[in-house]
């Protein structure tokens, strides 16, 4: 009898489990995070799954940003697309142009009836992912903005006051001289050179990076990165590179390793560098706002974001999109956002999350973590500082990287390099225009 009972239980368990599983709607979520960030995403997903029993979000890592976008595109062509795809900010124009492949977030939210208030999002973050009519196409997920990191110990070792004013590039220039004279081998290093020293530089000084409102107003946009402000900045950087005051380490965030090891005094890097620097740095560090050129353009305007947003793909059941809506709504909630912001150094995407973080006393305990938020939200974004929307932008960044390398090595003047970047980049913009007409 007992045996029979166990057998019946086992049998019913076997039959019931798949039933229980199919009762839930599965939502596929493809992202590009590994390591600590990957764990945090997994925690968010697990938490959401545990919070309700109608939907199951299945998260999978698909490689780096470019690879994730490629995986999404290839999957769409094969009819196997996920519900939610993480796309980095440079892929935004590609996704926006893909009408028929994407389902705008505002539509998903309206249909699903999930809680959604577009005004809750920070303007400068949201602006990157909304249409010119203000409709949100993708949900901002991880957004950061560049700041200046200071190694206080290196300053002291070189006999320079670590509290010295570093708000403008003019002052940074003087400080670099002093650091070099004090025996510092690596006064300044950077990550993501195009993003920080061209894209953000342009927005911060309120000068255009590309025509047609940086591409927001049309596909027939042309690069304008060879303007006076940009060329003056790159000329200064080129001179610093020649004198060994700016050390070039690579196109991505290679410089982070140098800075975290304590080898460099100043580091321009994303605010999201916080988690890594805090974990590894064995020196006192400061976060300062990104410097600007006194007297150039309208500086300081506001900086723009980097990072990724979540796109909902077309071609699934209405029921699935309900789950997607619930999940996106969960991700935007203040608690989730505040925790994400505090753990990673990424910006809070809603105003409420920023306020919750402030109220919790996090900024007082971790001075400098609010620098990025302030810098982003200091001014209402202009047409030049709303963001960038350029096709083939991943490749254009590659071109910019090459031309910048030519400046750092002394092969080209800043003007020559940027003229060439414009010419080559414009050719790709025209290709993109004809592919998406």
């Amino acid at each position, binding site marked *: 009898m007992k045996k029979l009972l166990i057998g019946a239980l086992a049998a019913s368990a076997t039959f019931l489990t798949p039933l229980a599983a199919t009762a839930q709607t599965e939502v596929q979520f493809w992202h590009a995070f590994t390591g600590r960030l990957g764990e945090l995403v997994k925690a968010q997903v697990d938490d959401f799954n545990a919070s309700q029993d109608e939907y199951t979000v299945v998260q999978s890592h698909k490689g780096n940003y470019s690879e994730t976008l490629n995986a999404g595109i290839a999957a769409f062509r094969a009819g196997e697309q996920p519900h939610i795809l993480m796309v980095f900010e440079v892929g935004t124009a590609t996704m926006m*142009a893909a009408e028929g492949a994407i389902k705008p977030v505002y539509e998903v939210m309206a249909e699903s009836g999930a809680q959604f208030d577009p005004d809750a999002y920070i303007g400068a973050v949201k602006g990157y992912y909304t249409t010119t009519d203000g409709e949100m196409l993708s949900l901002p997920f991880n957004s950061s903005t560049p700041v200046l990191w200071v190694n206080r110990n290196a300053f002291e070792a070189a006999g320079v006051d670590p509290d010295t004013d570093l708000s403008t590039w003019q002052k940074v220039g003087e400080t670099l001289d002093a650091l070099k004279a004090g025996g510092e081998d690596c006064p300044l290093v950077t990550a993501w050179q195009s993003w920080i020293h061209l894209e953000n530089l342009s927005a911060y000084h309120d000068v255009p990076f590309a025509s047609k409102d940086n591409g927001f107003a049309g596909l027939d946009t042309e690069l304008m990165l060879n303007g006076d402000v940009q060329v003056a900045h790159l000329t200064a950087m080129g001179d610093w590179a020649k004198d060994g005051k700016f050390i070039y380490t690579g196109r991505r965030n290679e410089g982070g390793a140098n800075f975290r090891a304590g080898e460099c005094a100043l580091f321009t890097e994303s605010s999201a560098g916080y988690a890594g620097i805090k974990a590894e740095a064995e020196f006192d560090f400061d976060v300062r706002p990104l410097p600007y050129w006194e007297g150039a353009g309208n500086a300081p305007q506001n900086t723009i974001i980097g990072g990724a947003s979540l796109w909902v793909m077309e071609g699934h059941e209405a029921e699935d999109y309900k789950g997607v809506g619930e999940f996106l709504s969960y991700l935007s909630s203040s608690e989730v956002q505040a925790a994400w912001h505090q753990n990673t150094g990424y910006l809070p995407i809603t105003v409420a999350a920023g306020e919750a973080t402030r109220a919790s006393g996090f900024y007082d305990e971790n001075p400098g973590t609010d620098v990025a938020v302030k810098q982003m939200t200091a001014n209402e974004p202009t047409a030049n500082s709303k963001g960038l929307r350029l096709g*083939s932008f*991943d490749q254009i960044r590659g071109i910019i990287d*090459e031309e910048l*390398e030519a400046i750092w090595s002394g092969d080209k003047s800043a003007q020559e390099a940027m003229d060439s970047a414009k010419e080559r980049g414009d050719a790709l913009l025209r290709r993109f225009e004809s*592919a998406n007409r």
Partner: protein
Amino acid sequence: MLPGSWMEKRVTFKGWLLPLLLIAPQVVISAIFFFYPAGQAVWQSLFIPDPFGLSARFVGLGNFEFLLSDKFYRASFVTTAVFSILVTLCSMIPALFLAVIADRLIKGSGVYRTLLIWPYAVAPAVAGVLWLFMFNTRVGVVSWYLGQLGYDWNHVLNGGEAMGLVVVASAWGRISYNFLFFFAALQAVPRSVIEAAAIDGAHFWRRFFTIVLPLLSPTTFFLLVVNIVYAFFETFGVIHTITAGGPQQSTTILVYKVFSDGFVGQDLGSSSAQSVILLVVVGLLTVIQFKFIEKRVHY
């Protein structure tokens, strides 16, 4: 041997069915994995599609026009030529040298041979990472020693150094492969001929250049073709991991550009057109090799 016996070596079949059946597997495989994709590439090269495959605009030869008017694309041909010649030389000459030395060994040649074959087992991408690690401008052992000697190694900014590094990293694993073939070919050189030359007083290197090298020519020719094809197509992993085509496109070979335009730029039209051009170039190269160089080969 009877004069007639060698004439009957060729097998003849009655009817068509059996021969067709016998070549069918090869034909099917070629059709699926070669003709179909190649045909697709040709077809797609006539369009500018959007990345998601939602629409495509017919442009005729527009993609080719766009490519050939791009000076960076034209420069990529030169880069590819320099790269393939260097990789071929750097992988064949040391391999031949090592094979000649190994051939002379009496004791321990087995161990020596095995050790030399190992690098071939390393995948190109992994080899790329290994070399990158040694020459890393920050933590690399070799770049540190170069720094001690007063040489400031920086392949991140210096195109010549970047090219040197990808060539060495690509050639390294290939030396093993070439070594195997050279070594086998050397074993097949008749001892009697060499001994006769030795008795006539020809020293080692003279014997090598006048007897051994000409007798190795079929192997050398085979390796030349195979290595050039390797340099054209299979070095992708090395370049992707070490330089990603930079600095300033100095290591962007044709096949790397196919990848970066197609999968980074999502420009599938241009990428397909480049594949077609690459197909033609390699086809021509192979024809040239067989027409002109093979004539000088003694079998």
